[in-house]
């Protein structure tokens, strides 16, 4: 007896339809949906935190993470093979300043500059950068030049392709 005209085709993810109407995926097959999911997970590999400093902040000041100066204790990088791909900033006024992101091993030990971005008369800005980070080291943010009021800064970390 022949079933389906005597034809059997093995299923692979790319041949399996994916119903994207219940989510914000664009993919229409399972293979592409999984790749899209990996990309989304990649985005969430970032620390998902910001540094900040309330009040008027002048050149040389280190931004805080959870009330702790980030040059004393910063945000630990948990994953290997990652890099900072985006830095975003916000402040209360139209401020002009230069922000630097460093990594260190605690208390500024082996402090290493990773990225520098400059904001000009703006309340918010974002910058695309490529700055590999080291697993286990702490990230810190410093207002290097200029001044800002109630400044907040953060970064997005992704896997190095």
């Amino acid at each position, binding site marked *: 007896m022949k079933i389906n005209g005597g034809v059997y085709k093995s299923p692979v993810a790319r*041949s399996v339809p994916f119903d994207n109407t219940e989510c914000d995926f664009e993919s229409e097959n399972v293979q592409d949906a999984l790749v899209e999911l990996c990309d989304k997970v990649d985005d969430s590999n970032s620390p998902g935190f910001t540094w900040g400093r309330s009040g008027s902040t002048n050149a040389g000041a280190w931004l805080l993470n959870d009330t702790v100066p980030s040059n004393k204790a910063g945000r630990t990088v948990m994953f290997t093979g990652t890099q900072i791909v985006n830095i975003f900033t916000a402040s209360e006024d139209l401020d002009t300043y230069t922000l630097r992101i460093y990594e260190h091993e605690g208390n500024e030990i082996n402090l290493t500059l990773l990225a520098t971005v400059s904001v000009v008369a703006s309340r918010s800005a974002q910058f695309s950068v490529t700055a590999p980070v080291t697993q286990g080291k702490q990230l810190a943010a410093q207002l290097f030049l200029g001044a800002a009021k109630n400044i907040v800064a953060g970064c997005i970390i992704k896997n190095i392709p």
Partner: protein
Amino acid sequence: MAIGMSFNPDKSDVNNTSYVTASVVVSTIQVELKTGLTPLQSRQVITITNKGPNPVYIGPSGVTSLTGDPLYKDQFVSIQVGDNLKIYGICAATQTATLIVQEYA
């Protein structure tokens, strides 16, 4: 006079004559999928496995990437078809793929 007959349906239609395998490279021009110069004589089944890297579109002569049945990388298709029916494969523009073709008789 006594006449007896026995019939074992489990083994009544088992390929037991030939089993041949070949690697076939497919590109943007259709290629007949067979293991030799002609389809295996008395062929009963053909199995086509796509080793990639690109999809191959399967169909009769004249098949294109728009009309063929796509066979994706690591996917296989098994078709109960005799040696009179020719099966072709073709890739989309600028693509190639390697197929493992096996014929049973």
